[in-house]
């Protein structure tokens, strides 16, 4: 990106654009496998594969409901931890295989371990490789390797000492995004980052100033045109005092969430009001209060380049 100065009437051009905003979402989860799959997961730690019976079909991992009829399983069975390779794919992270466990009807997908180009063949006989440290997850079955013997057995009644189901599987997702600024956010946040200016656009029909800037006025659906510099001074339209703490929160409470209409604009800027006691904010940071931006030392090209808005006495 380039930092040259723009005049207020410049249309955005490619050279003014910042490319993208990096954003990461990290989310913890506690997933519920359900009864049959929960028992399947629990029994992996004992080096047993548990399947479920649905009429003439046996599924492994065990499933609560038949994929054919939707009916609950008629019961669980123990299946041999050996089977035949029905398909595979190799990626940079390893090889995944479709394994049809002996006596079952639907192949299961899992990691293939220690195969080479000679042995990686459809139809190859494979056997389970167990994790040394079971934790109650699918990876207690580490994967499948080439079978070392021809031992197997037909699906049979489950052992009497079947474990209770795993009720919860801890999981997390970390998702990295690169959000394109595009010409409008690019022009705005370029000005924010380098010039400490906020810039909106004017609707060609109703003449309202819109911030963030955009190509069309949402109300008139007419194109916008003129760029306008906006003072970072405005009026609180709505505010609340945040006490709640939650996973993924960006700031430590208490803080004042605020929707601010900057002078001359017709839209809402979402930010926080700082430098005010949480109890005092109930009356001081109220709708109608006047506020001014306090710029940060950071230059990130985002709204966090403003530390907070401060009440104007």
């Amino acid at each position, binding site marked *: 990106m380039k930092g040259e100065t723009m005049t207020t009437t410049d249309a955005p051009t490619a050279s003014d654009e910042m490319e993208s*905003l990096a*954003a990461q*979402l990290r*989310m*913890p*989860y*506690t*997933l*519920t*496998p*359900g*009864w049959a*799959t929960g028992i399947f997961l629990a029994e992996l730690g004992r080096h047993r594969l548990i399947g479920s019976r649905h009429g003439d079909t046996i599924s492994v991992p065990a*499933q*609560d*409901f*038949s*994929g*054919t*009829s*939707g009916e609950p399983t008629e019961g669980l069975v123990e299946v041999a931890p050996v089977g035949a390779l029905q398909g595979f794919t190799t990626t940079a992270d390893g090889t995944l295989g479709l394994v049809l466990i002996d006596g079952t009807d639907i192949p299961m997908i899992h990691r293939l371990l220690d195969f080479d180009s000679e042995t990686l063949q459809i139809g190859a006989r494979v056997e389970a490789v167990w994790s040394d440290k079971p934790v109650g997850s699918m990876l207690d079955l580490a994967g499948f390797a080439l079978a070392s013997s021809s031992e197997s057995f037909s699906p049979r009644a489950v052992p009497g000492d079947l474990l209770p189901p795993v*009720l*919860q599987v801890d999981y997390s*997702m970390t998702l990295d*995004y690169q*959000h394109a*600024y595009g010409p409008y956010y690019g022009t705005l*946040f370029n000005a924010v980052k380098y010039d400490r200016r906020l810039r909106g656009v004017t*609707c060609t029909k109703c003449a*309202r100033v*819109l911030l*963030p800037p955009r190509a069309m*006025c*949402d*109300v008139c659906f007419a194109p916008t045109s003129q760029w306008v510099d906006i003072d970072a001074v405005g009026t609180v*339209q*709505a*505010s*609340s*005092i*945040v*006490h*709640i703490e*939650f*996973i*993924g*929160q*960006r*700031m430590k409470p208490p803080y004042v*969430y*605020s*929707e601010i209409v900057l002078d001359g604009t*017709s*839209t*809402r*800027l*979402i930010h926080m009001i700082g430098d005010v006691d949480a109890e005092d904010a109930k009356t001081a940071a109220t*709708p109608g209060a006047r506020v001014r931006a306090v710029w940060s030392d950071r230059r990130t090209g*985002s*709204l966090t380049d403003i530390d907070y808005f401060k009440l104007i006495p």
Partner: protein
Amino acid sequence: MSIAIVGTGQTVHARRRTDVSQAGLAREAVIEALADAGLTMDDIDSVIVASGPAMFGAVNQPEKWLVDALGARYKPLVRVTSGGGTGLAGALAAINQINGGSARRVLVVAYDKLSEGALQASISTLYDPFWGREFAVGIMGFAAAYWHARIEKLGHTEEAAALVAVKNRRQAMANPKAHVRREVTVDEVMASRPLCWPIKLLDVPPISDGACAVIFAAGGDAEAITDRPAWIHGMTYYSEADNGADRSMLQSEPLQIAAAKVYKQAGITNPFRQFDVAEVQEPYTCFELSYYEGLGLCPEGGAAELIESGETAMGGSLPVNPSGGCMGANPIGATALIRLAEAAMQVTGKAGDHQVVGAERALVQAGGGWANLRGVAAVGAEKR
């Protein structure tokens, strides 16, 4: 075309259902709805799955997983999602399929298993990544901020909202499906911990695992299936630009538009007098006050007076949320469909201990988004 609800089902809602997967949860409601209608999956032409943002439960495109547990194999099946209005949006999709002639009997199943994810963080991702997400508190910060504005401009006081909490939590006591059944007093609500002032702990519904299923049928089919159909008198879902110019948010314009449209469809000219019961989706107490005005049950600025009058409590002239509303259970993706199912139960006399005696016409409200997606429906005992 006349369309009716011929069966409804709900799970037992709870903070965490460790006994079922997401698919098993949805199935539980479907089994109950099929039993209520006296139908099997063989009788169903089309299935609509309605659930909240995929971020809630970490399963993207969950409808592919639900096919097995629902026995929906080889049937048309789509997923509809629209925040807190998801269930009503799913119902509208069913109505449109029947009106369009592509199906005669449609199953809608709506669910969320909120115990599995980080709720506020998930909802915060509904914000534009460039515009406000850093400061987001789920939807709570926003909702509290505009309640604060309505306290100042419309007199929707903390005490008035506390009366909503008292009323709905009391009414939930008579609903066997409710997840939270505990009465509170105005003083307890007022003294409860601030989460996002003016929103306090007891202004907030529980976080629930739960599902709801509703079966819709075209007129002739409906009459063949049951002698007590709940006829759809009107249903719409409207939007407003998220950050359009001059949105004060004191009123939800799409709610006003949706209500006007449904009242016209249903032949309603005075909603407060003509409806016998209402089920509204109140994710916080302050929203119920706002909806009184948006639905035209009272004039703008009249909501506090209406709740204080007791007319919206059981025994009043228009009981609102006999089920307890969201205060009884709030599995977000299912919540709006629960409102519709409860309305159908009321006009068919199936609401049990929380039945409004003689209810013939019921009003339903639901919405998702930042006050900018709003739906309304009317159901009645009389064929229309």
